[in-house]
């Protein structure tokens, strides 16, 4: 039997409830407790999505503590003394921290709700004083974080059965429902609290998720996609400026990259003036946000790289780690200046204006009026064929640049499939994307290793110029690190052939042609020669 929730209405006093159970149980009413709670979650609501809550609790007369709970069962998952630090992950202790970090991963916690609650437990005990059933009556109100005005919510009554005492729980339930005429309510207390406070959980997603329909023209579809990407950028902007966690900049840059890719891949559906201005604008935005992100990725990957080295070498690398952190701080300041500057403000404003009106260009060979599905499918199929061609030409001796170009092509393909996914059967799209992701992971690894290995040489030059420079052992250790990364890069490179073969296999080609190939060829026959991208 799971815990049951009730809306007790008038039957919410401890006295009234105690009288219900007297005779069958010994009722012990615990003292009333009051607490102010702040609920925390990540920007993308990972805890809420997992059915959990994390609360900082300030109870009257007691030190602050933090609790992590499962929402429906109210099961305690972790407890620690003290509140949450804004700068570091919660420290619940070994055995619990790992479970929480599986959910939070790189995301920081932010306050999302303020709750003020008064509650009391009633313990229904047997003859030997053992608690066999618990009841919890709660009166509470909720509001936005930091808000003084909290809106009252209906009181709740929870009947908590205890393992091994199911018979007693059933009896308590019977008494409660028969005597007070209450019926179990659906448990949605947190959802109610968010609603009352005007907070919308799960309101953020980094997925494009553009809802397009079959008859839509390419231009309209493209403006919907680009608007959604602009929305993602806006949602992440504050987090980037405040440097809350690395994922804000990651999501921001992915939205920028996708915007540039959409403009590039669908350029015949974009007026030339729009294309020229905003290709340059978003190109600039990609450039100013790049260095900070590159250093973030490096710092995130370093612990993994360090695992392959012996501890003494890792210790000698500490001046390098500090140097990267200092550089990262400097790049973040430059990034902040750029995002607070006139050029970005102007870009946002003009982009908002451009997306807010129909383009309907009269320029020659404008494809904006053609069906979105057909224009997109043709492009997607062409991208796939290009990857197959590039892959066929790739040899073990090919330069890293060739692998890099392949990676870019794979990324463009992935973006296009995702932009227009609502126009295709979802299970087929998932299948294609899953196979593409396998290839992309290897291409991405190879590229990261290449970049990180080369960056080490730049860092070495920079460290030489530092006064005083780090000890020689640091440079030796960097050499070892470079070699270790090169080894991983070679592994990724040798795995690439098989991944490419798999992606460009006959079976996969058939699948991609079946989803994206047909319309593309039809469009090509109707307007041959006019659709060269």
């Amino acid at each position: 039997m799971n815990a049951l929730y009730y809306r007790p209405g008038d039957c919410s006093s401890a006295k009234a409830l105690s009288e219900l159970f007297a005779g069958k149980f010994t009722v012990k009413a615990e003292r009333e407790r009051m607490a102010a709670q702040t609920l925390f979650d990540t920007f993308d609501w990972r805890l809420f999505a997992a059915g959990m809550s994390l609360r900082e609790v300030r109870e009257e007369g007691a030190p602050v503590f933090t609790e992590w709970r499962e929402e429906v069962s109210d099961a305690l998952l972790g407890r620690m003394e003290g509140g949450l630090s804004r700068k570091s992950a919660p420290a619940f202790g070994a055995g619990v921290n790992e479970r929480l970090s599986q959910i939070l991963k790189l995301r920081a916690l932010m306050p999302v709700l303020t709750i003020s609650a008064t509650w009391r437990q009633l313990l229904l005990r047997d003859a030997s004083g053992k608690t066999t059933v618990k009841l919890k009556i709660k009166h509470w109100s909720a509001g936005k974080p930091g808000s003084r005005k909290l809106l009252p919510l209906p009181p709740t009554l929870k009947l908590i059965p205890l393992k091994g005492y199911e018979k007693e729980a059933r009896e308590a339930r019977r008494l409660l429902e028969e005597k007070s005429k209450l019926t179990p309510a659906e448990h949605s207390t947190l959802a109610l609290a968010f609603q009352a406070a005007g907070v919308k959980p799960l309101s953020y997603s980094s997925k494009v998720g553009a809802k397009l329909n079959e008859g839509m023209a390419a231009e309209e579809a493209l403006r919907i996609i680009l608007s959604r990407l602009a929305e993602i950028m806006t949602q992440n902007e504050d987090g980037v400026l405040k440097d809350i966690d690395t994922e804000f900049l990651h999501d921001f840059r992915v939205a920028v990259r996708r915007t540039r890719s959409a403009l590039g891949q669908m350029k015949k559906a974009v007026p030339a003036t729009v294309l020229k201005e905003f290709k340059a604008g978003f190109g600039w935005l990609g450039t100013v946000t790049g260095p900070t992100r590159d250093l973030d990725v490096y710092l995130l990957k370093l612990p993994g790289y360090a695992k392959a080295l012996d501890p003494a070498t890792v210790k000698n690398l500490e001046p390098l780690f500090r140097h990267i952190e200092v550089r990262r701080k400097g790049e973040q300041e430059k990034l902040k200046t750029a995002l607070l500057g006139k050029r970005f403000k102007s870009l946002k404003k003009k982009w908002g204006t451009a997306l807010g009106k129909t383009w309907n260009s009269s320029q020659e060979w404008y494809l904006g009026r053609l069906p979105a599905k057909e224009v997109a499918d043709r492009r997607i199929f062409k991208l796939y064929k290009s990857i197959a061609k590039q892959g066929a030409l790739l040899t073990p001796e090919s330069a890293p640049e060739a692998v890099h170009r392949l990676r870019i092509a794979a990324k463009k393909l992935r973006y296009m499939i995702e932009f227009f996914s609502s126009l295709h059967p979802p299970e087929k799209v998932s299948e294609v994307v899953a196979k593409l992701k396998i290839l992309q992971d290897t291409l991405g690894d190879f590229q990261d290793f290449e970049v990180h290995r080369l960056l080490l040489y730049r860092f070495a030059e920079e460290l030489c110029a530092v006064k005083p420079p780090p000890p020689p052992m640091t440079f030796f250790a960097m050499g070892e690190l470079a070699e270790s990364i090169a080894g991983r890069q070679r592994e990724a490179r040798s795995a690439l052939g098989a991944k490419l073969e798999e992606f460009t296999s006959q079976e996969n080609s058939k699948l991609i042609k079946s989803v994206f190939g047909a319309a593309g060829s039809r469009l090509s026959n109707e307007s041959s020669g006019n659709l060269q991208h």
Partner: protein
Amino acid sequence: MKVAATYNIKGGVGKTAAAVNIAHLAAQSGLKTLVWDLDPQGAATFYFRVKPKVKGGGKKLLKADGGLLPAIKATDFENLDIIPADFSLRHLDIDLERKKNPEKRLKKLLAPLSGEYDLVVLDCPPSISLVSEAVFRAADALLIPVIPTTLSLRTLQKLDDFKKEEGLDNLLFLVFFSMADRRKKLHREIIEEVAGNRADVLSTLIPYASDVELMGVHRKPLSAFSTNSASAKAYRALWGEVRTTLFGGK
């Protein structure tokens, strides 16, 4: 799931107090915890106010198909359950002997609980027997409370020998001094000698204190009624060391 057993051949050294307090602290920290009271005296069961009764007795508990789940009772404390003692556990050795691979039986019985619990604490009777052998094979660590006396050192030596003879290389011994009185010269000397000669001695000392005895009056773990006493702080420190050893990290 980790399994820790409080064990010593000698009685009255603080096994049950350690089992109950560590289990409570573990549960409070968010780890789903189960105490299995294997001592027919049922002291842990008494502390948690649970009836010392298992349907079918010790014999039924050992049945592989029955499983331990039906015997589990929630304590009054969140995240903390108990398989209560039953007086029939006085025959547990005999019941085990009738089973195939008796020394592996407890481990087999605990295995299905790994999805339910993070930590199982076995409160063992003071004896060296088939039950103890089964505990040694089921546990990841033995928490060995030792009163700092000369006789205790002999007990430790016997345990070391037994571990070696039985090839229990993966079993961790976590020795800690219990009912220790630093004012006594003998206690200080024994503590220094043992800690100096063994790598498996935890640094926390559990002091001799009356509030531990009050657990029997309150029928609660110490940290449920006396959070700031020296003993409560000592058990918290002990739990910290045990936690790091069993679960790693900080």
